[in-house]
């Protein structure tokens, strides 16, 4: 046991677990403010919404950022978790008094059911990659949504009415779950299994040659990510009094993917920051632009999205970014010449992370069969020869 504690102390690095402290400090600050009655009810509502969006972004980052598989069905897992979890919660409320216990049990049940669906969706991931997998995961999300909508046991079109959890304590529970999810994901990434997962992202063939069981890890990552999405669904279910399938369409899956991609696909901190900022801005814009003004929210959001992606990725902007960026500014202000920087590997940069979505191994444009590469007979006037009978 003593050795265990020594090991923990030895391997503890402040820089690596900085984000736990940031969130813990933020949570404590919010609790004090709330206790002092400073926080309005809408702020408390936004906090629990930010919490479950962080969980969704971090779990999706496992699939997209670390395993390199594009998934557009994350809202589908959340839908399963929300419906099943809250259905059980409604039943449990009769027998168990304490809401917290019911919430915890519901989270486990919702997460477990979503994990089963995660496993099912993981199976095609073994054979498909890139855009094919994107369409299959998107299709899965739509199917689940469609089924729950028509299912009378789950409230049919009207939706499943649930007993909302007390808003002022829900965000505390939600942020504790965020800390738990973050700990589990970061511990997984910073272990030999995390290295195996990133190896699969970088070079699946080499990973196989090194004896890594690719099937096992792909299914494992999809199941874990679906479990956390299910838990987030249950938290959402308890923040509203009615769950309807229109909150789980593929547009929401795209929003969560955007959070992961803008935050930086290889970095957990990126996902946390992006998730909280995007959610906050969305709700803030929604509250500000009332009446006829509401229409302009969507184009603005789209423009911001395109601008940020363009700035991050356009090759033409690379020289511009080299000269004017925060680091040079920092050096200018503090005149400090930093030693040639060792780039930490687990937070991979955008473009260096060739996501598995290389399209060429799936390209299937018709190439005329080998008859076409017999040399064309030159025509008298040397004009380009129409191939005799190239296949289509």
């Amino acid at each position, binding site marked *: 046991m003593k050795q265990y504690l020594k090991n923990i102390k030895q391997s503890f690095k402040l*820089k690596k677990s*900085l*984000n736990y402290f*940031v*969130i813990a*400090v*933020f949570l404590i*600050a*919010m609790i004090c*403010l709330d206790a002092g009655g*400073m*926080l*309005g*009810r*809408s*702020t*408390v*509502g*936004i*906090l629990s919404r930010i919490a479950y969006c962080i969980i969704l972004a971090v779990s999706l980052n496992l699939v997209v950022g670390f395993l390199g598989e594009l998934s557009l069905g994350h809202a589908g897992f959340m839908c399963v978790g929300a419906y099943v979890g809250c259905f059980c919660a409604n039943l449990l409320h009769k027998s168990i008094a304490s809401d917290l216990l019911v919430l915890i049990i519901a989270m486990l049940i919702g997460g477990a059911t979503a994990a089963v669906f995660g496993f099912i969706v993981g199976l095609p991931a073994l054979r498909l990659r890139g855009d094919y997998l994107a369409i299959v995961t998107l299709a899965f999300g739509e199917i689940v949504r*469609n089924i729950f*909508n*028509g299912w009378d046991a789950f409230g*049919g*079109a*009207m*939706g499943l*009415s649930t007993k*909302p959890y007390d*808003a002022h304590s829900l965000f505390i529970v939600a942020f504790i779950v965020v800390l738990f999810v973050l700990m589990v994901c970061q511990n997984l990434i910073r272990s030999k299994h995390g290295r195996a997962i990133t190896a699969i992202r970088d070079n699946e063939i080499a990973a196989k040659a090194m004896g890594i069981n690719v099937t096992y890890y792909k299914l494992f990552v999809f199941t874990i990510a679906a479990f956390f999405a299910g838990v987030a669904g249950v938290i959402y279910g308890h*923040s*509203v*009094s*009615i*769950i*309807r399938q*229109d*909150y789980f369409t593929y547009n929401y899956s795209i929003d969560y993917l955007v959070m992961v991609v803008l935050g*930086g696909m290889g*970095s957990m*901190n*990126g996902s946390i*920051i992006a998730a909280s*900022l995007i959610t*906050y801005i969305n*709700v*803030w814009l*929604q*509250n500000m*632009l*009332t*009446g*006829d003004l509401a*229409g302009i*929210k969507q184009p603005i959001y789209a423009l911001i999205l395109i601008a940020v992606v363009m700035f991050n990725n356009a090759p033409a902007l690379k020289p511009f970014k080299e000269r004017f960026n*925060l*680091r040079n500014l920092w050096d200018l202000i503090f005149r400090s010449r930093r030693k040639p*920087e060792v*780039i930490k590997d687990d*937070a991979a940069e955008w473009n260096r992370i060739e996501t598995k979505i290389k399209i060429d191994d799936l390209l299937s444009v018709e190439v005329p069969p080998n008859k076409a590469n017999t040399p064309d007979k030159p025509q008298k006037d040397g004009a380009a020869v129409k191939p005799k009978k190239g296949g289509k």
Partner: protein
Amino acid sequence: MKNMKKIMAFALAAVMAVSCLTGCGKSESKKSAYFIGATGPLTGDAMSYGVSVNRGAQIAVDEINEAGGLNGVEFTYEMKDDKATAADASTGYDSLYDDGMQVSIGSVTSASCEAFASKAAEDNLFFITPSASAASVIENRSNAFRVCFGDPDQGTLAAEELSENFEKIGCIYDTSDTYSTGIWEAFDEEMKNLGTEYTVCTFDADNKRDFSSQVDTLKDCDVIFLPIYYTEAGLIAKACAAKGVGAEIFGCDGLDGVAEQIDSTVTNRIRYITPFDVNSTDEKVAAFVSKYEDAYGEKPDQFAADGYDAVYAIYLAMDAAGVNDVKISASDLCDKIVEAITDDSFSYAGLTGDMTWDASGACTKVPVIVELSN
């Protein structure tokens, strides 16, 4: 580059905390007027209903304020966008509550109104929804009232009307819409009590544009009952015309506005239950129609009229209850309004007919069956 991200993380977390605080700091400033809040779909698929209710309510509020408000105190009104989802309705409610909302006209669509109502019940905040017609919205909630018909009343009325004068009856309804399913369930129940047979087809949110197959199945019916909204009803009418199906089309208050959707090819007879007839000769309605057209350049529909009536119902109830303290809390105001509005002597001759309310919150008004002249 990497530790730069860590430092940014710190800065942004702090910014987030600060902005959350400021978010809640601004609620006291609007105390000089009664604050009517609402949520409705101002973007997304159901946007047109939200926009209509919002405009109707705005016209009513401006009218009241011009006439001097409630003995000198004006009203302020704001509708938050809830994209017709429950989640955004509850965030909208929270944000309105923080802004000091005292009374409300609820949400526009049934599902978000359900979420709105459960929050309003906790704070005992009075709301009278112009258009959320699902029965469950006002069930055993003392603070929940409604201006429009309940789904069930329209369903039973339609069943009686159709089973009397038609043999072969067809029906098409939208399984993914609470308004449509609500009316159909009551209609189906009443048809069973009356023992009349009818064939039913359905569609849902994801394919509510191509109705050729549904029309083919019902092509030899005398009448087709459409408890749906006017956009889809217009498409079905055109599909019938295109396929040469001559059946009469009978609908509910959702059909108001179908006139613009159809063209000269549609020769079928179209009738629908509606409380609001845009070209009725009543001078109150005519005044509203002209004011709406000047302001927004298009004719108002039944949702705008309901929004208008909801605001006036609140105003008249507060007037009858003799409310004069601007700083009155939401729940005291609610008790006063409920007591006034459920009083037998209270009635309001609005755009959508003469209305009275009882303790259940449902509104009793004389339904009128309007025939489309084309």
